[in-house]
């Protein structure tokens, strides 16, 4: 076991835990934001640098601070380590720079993007970004590529987090999409324009932190904050069948996996559940999904009724 102090909060975690996991064990503001790290995907993380933190004391044995800011998703804790996240102005400033880099080529098409409202980059930009871009050049654009009738790829929005590639690699057997080319022109693509027809390929939509991979069956149907998220399940032979339904009225507009408080999937669901069962009668509804009240999705969703008050008046 290792004792680690992050932003003044001390927590004891098993050896080999990353700083990010330790910070998440504390929870709240202490946990650094992430874009490319996904807790259910092995070897994810380490690309986007959003989760950088300052290690002001290496460990009890060697109390020297680490020379540079480190990516918390890839750095394991040591006993007696002291970490600064929001308490260090250096980290806050560096993260602002990272956001600026991520937004350099990201189009400002949130009004059109289906991910708006549940986009991690949007949240990150609001919390850590600047108000204006300092980028004077044309944004990098790609020609639109069709990668099948279920998933829509918007390469312009991609931030190359590799989450979808890792999903295709680890969840599906025989990955048929990856990152092509290098550097500024690298892009997500299927090999030789091959359509993705694996049973679990739809999970790439869920893991995408931006709107690069979106559900084609939900395309432009509704903004997420006009839909009502409901927990539901069904007997599925392929997957757990535990999903979130996004309803509007009695219509199921979209089916996604359930996401935890960090916006990461709890369980993977199959394409059959995701794309083929869009009727309320297909599902057993468990109840409304609890959405963080700071999220725009919880806007105009009333969980409690004012009935007790009326009852009091009757008496």
């Amino acid at each position, binding site marked *: 076991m290792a004792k680690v102090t992050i932003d003044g909060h001390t927590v004891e975690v098993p050896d080999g835990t990353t700083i990010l996991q330790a910070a998440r064990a504390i929870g709240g503001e202490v946990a650094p934001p992430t874009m490319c790290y996904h807790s259910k995907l092995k070897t994810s993380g380490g690309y986007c640098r959003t989760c950088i933190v300052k290690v002001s004391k290496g460990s009890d044995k060697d109390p020297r601070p680490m020379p540079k800011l480190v990516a918390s998703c890839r750095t394991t804790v040591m006993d007696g380590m002291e970490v600064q996240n929001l308490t260090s102005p250096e980290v806050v400033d560096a993260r602002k720079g990272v956001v600026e880099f991520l937004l350099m080529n990201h189009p400002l*098409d*949130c*009004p*059109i993007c289906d991910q*708006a409202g549940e986009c991690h980059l949007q949240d990150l930009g609001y919390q850590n970004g600047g108000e204006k871009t300092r980028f004077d050049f044309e944004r990098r654009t790609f020609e639109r590529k069709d990668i099948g009738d279920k998933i829509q790829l918007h390469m312009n929005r991609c931030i190359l987090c590799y989450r979808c590639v890792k999903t295709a690699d680890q969840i599906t057997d025989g990955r048929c999409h990856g990152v092509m080319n290098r550097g500024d022109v690298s892009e997500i693509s299927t090999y030789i324009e091959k359509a993705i027809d694996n049973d679990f390929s739809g999970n790439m939509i869920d893991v995408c932190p931006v709107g690069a991979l979106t559900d084609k069956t939900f*395309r*432009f*149907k*509704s*903004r997420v*904050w*006009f839909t009502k998220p409901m927990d539901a399940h069904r007997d599925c032979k392929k997957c757990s069948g535990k999903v979130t339904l996004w309803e509007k009225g009695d219509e199921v507009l979209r089916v996604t996996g359930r996401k935890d408080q960090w916006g990461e999937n709890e369980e993977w669901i199959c394409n059959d559940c995701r794309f083929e069962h869009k009727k309320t009668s297909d599902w057993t509804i468990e109840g409304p999904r609890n959405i963080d009240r700071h999220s*725009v999705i919880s*806007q*105009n969703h009333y969980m409690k009724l004012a009935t007790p008050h009326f009852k009091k008046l009757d008496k």
Partner: protein
Amino acid sequence: MKALTNRSKVAVNKELSFMERLYFPAIIKGMAITLSHLFKKKATLKYPEVQKEFAPVYRGKHVLKRDEKGAENCTACGLCAVACPAEAITMTAAERKKGEEGKYREEKYAAVYEINMLRCIFCGLCEEACPKEAIFLTDEIVKTSYDRQDFVYGKDKLVEDMNNRIDITKRQKKY
């Protein structure tokens, strides 16, 4: 009891002087004020013939703007509807097809866009929320009607007519 303020006047039953008892000076003074108003600028307007110009901050009926080429600015992003405190705005989005580039500015557009003018409180938050400079509140007044359904304004009533454009430059945000 001590007075809380010094504004109250103590009534004195002092006997009026001769001049005060005459009342004539006071009457003449009043008449002079009345007469002077004959030569001052009138506070009222002859309404139907003469109409007063609205203040630039006046918030009346909404307009959905088009750009210079006549394409609709609105992309059905839903920010106006989520900002609306009265929940008066509803919309349905659709994808722009090939050949419709002149009709709609962006890839997505509002196929249905409705404002319930009976619900609307004309607060202007939709205008403030709009990222595309699509919705503006004008100095037009919502017409009266006997039918509730007439107050649900669709795109036919909201979208700007290209032959009769509405100037909203005074309401545009300055950055």
